[in-house]
């Protein structure tokens, strides 16, 4: 649980720093280069942040690939500016300067009613998957990572504040139902995003570009694969729920994506077919959606990103009571009553009809003392009792204090101080 609630994102400091123009040229030169040299050594397995120049670009020529002109502005230490005429091969993704003239891109920008603070070039960059362009300055991996942290933060704080008694397994699945790849794929399709047949320099910048046969980036919780995840997979541990809490590589309690990751560099050619993603289109669409959230956060700020997430993702209809599947509901209900010092649950027949007929109906209520915990009809006494205890357990787990404030409400300037929300001690273990 602590993974969700207390992960404080202090993006504001860095974000404001990033979007402001650097004051001195020395700062402009030093900061990116320092970061780009130090971090890849610390996280070897990062597939997100490979800042080494992409090998695919260099394959065709012996001389270093001519960087695009923006690159030259930002990182002069990369080498002398090389005029565009010397460029040998085609670019892997459309040039950013073409974004302003793309009708599709402008229509998508207007359809999402994005703020005019977000330039279309950023939207064009959000549409380039790492499988199409491995260069981290031109694909959406970084935007998508920022977007995924923002999305997961708001989704988790909303779920935990609104349903403080959700069991961990249900919380993982609910997070996936709101922010997982399948849900984000549906969102991208509802936004009317079309994908290009194949990525390349010549495609319209308003199309989603990805290549299902090339390696890509899978968003995970940490941005890299942790050593303990690799260890736990080697020894096949961490399959239980507590292991999923500790070692999962994404906020949905899964570690399957990490299996492919350790050797899953974006720009090397060693990827075999077994390492390719199962559902590359869904992954690419989902990364685009995350990148749009990241772009909103970077250009419009924290509050805009929060309301964007709320209006496009958390407003979707999701019936959490359909997620539960119980093995032994009657025993679990008895444990619950013992834990909470309720009287032991008793099943009582409330009403019945047609006991001797082919289709009898029994209505069974579960009582604890004078309080009715749940009720359900069933075709025989036993299944009615089981269904009634399932209803009682769902009523317990899906308790909601109503519209409560979430921690991010206190980020506002004139916000009231945070009053700790009620979160339950945990699910019933039997």
């Amino acid at each position, binding site marked *: 649980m602590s993974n969700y609630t207390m992960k404080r994102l202090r993006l504001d400091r860095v974000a404001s720093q990033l979007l402001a123009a650097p004051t001195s040229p020395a700062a402009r030169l030093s900061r990116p280069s320092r970061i780009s040299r130090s971090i890849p050594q610390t996280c070897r397995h990062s597939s997100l942040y490979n800042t080494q120049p992409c090998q695919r670009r260099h394959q065709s020529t012996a001389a270093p690939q001519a960087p695009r002109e923006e690159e030259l502005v930002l990182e002069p230490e990369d080498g002398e500016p090389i005029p565009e005429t010397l460029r040998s091969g085609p670019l892997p993704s459309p040039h950013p300067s073409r974004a302003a003239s793309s009708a599709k891109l402008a229509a998508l920008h207007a359809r999402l009613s994005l703020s005019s603070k977000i330039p279309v070039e950023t939207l064009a960059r959000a549409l380039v998957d790492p499988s199409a362009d491995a260069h981290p300055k031109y694909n959406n991996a970084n935007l998508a990572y920022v977007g995924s942290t923002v999305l997961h933060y708001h989704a988790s704080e909303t779920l935990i504040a609104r349903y403080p008694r959700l069991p961990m397994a249900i919380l*993982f699945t609910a997070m996936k139902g709101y922010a997982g790849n399948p849900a984000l794929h549906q*969102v991208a399709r509802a936004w009317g995003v079309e994908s290009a047949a194949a990525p390349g320099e010549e495609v319209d910048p308003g199309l989603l570009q990805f290549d299902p046969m090339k390696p890509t980036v899978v968003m995970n919780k940490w941005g890299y694969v942790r050593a303990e995840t690799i260890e736990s997979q080697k020894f096949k541990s961490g399959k239980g729920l507590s292991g999923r809490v500790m070692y999962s590589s994404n906020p949905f309690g899964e570690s399957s994506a990490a299996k492919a990751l350790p050797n899953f560099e974006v720009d090397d050619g060693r990827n075999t077919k077994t390492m390719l993603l199962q559902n590359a289109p869904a992954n690419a669409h989902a990364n685009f959606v995350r990148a749009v959230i990241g772009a909103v956060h970077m250009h419009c700020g924290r509050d805009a990103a929060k309301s964007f997430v709320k209006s496009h993702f958390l*407003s979707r209809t999701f019936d959490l009571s359909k997620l539960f599947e119980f093995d032994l509901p009657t025993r679990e209900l008895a444990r619950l009553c013992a834990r909470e010092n309720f009287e032991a649950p008793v099943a009582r027949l409330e009403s019945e009809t047609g006991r001797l007929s082919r289709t009898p109906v029994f*209505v069974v209520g579960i009582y604890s003392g004078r309080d009715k915990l749940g009720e359900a009809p069933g075709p025989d006494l036993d299944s009615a009792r089981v269904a009634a205890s399932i209803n009682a357990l769902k009523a317990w787990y899906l308790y909601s204090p109503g519209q409560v404030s979430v921690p991010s409400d206190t980020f506002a300037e004139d916000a009231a101080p945070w009053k700790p929300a009620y979160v339950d001690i945990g699910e019933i273990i039997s």
Partner: protein
Amino acid sequence: MTIRALEKISVGQNGIGSFILQCKRLDIHYCDHSGSSRGMNAFIKTHLSKFAQKNPAIEFAVSPRPRKHPVMIGHYINGRQKSICVANMEPSQILKKAELLRDASGDKVKRVNKPVTSINESVRGIWSPYHGNGMAV
């Protein structure tokens, strides 16, 4: 671990939280010479830029189609398309047709008898014969 979770996906409904215009592209075909395109050519000259400015969420594609009647084709987010032949129409009539294409959802037209459609559960619950005191006959 007695609780297992079944995977489900949240359902989005347009208009809740955010609104996405369903018409994403409008193809406009005309002919320079034939008389049936006269209204369409006037529409392109006079009305189209204003209409496109009012509807930034739609991508407009204007292309000639010689020796054919003028056509407008709307492409929708659900993947369907709707085409209208606007031969021999006045520019104002064509503008009406363009608004029709913009307002459409792209779904197949159906006859619907119930005014309200909902995916929510009934708020007041379903009447049950097994509860209450019953009725004296």
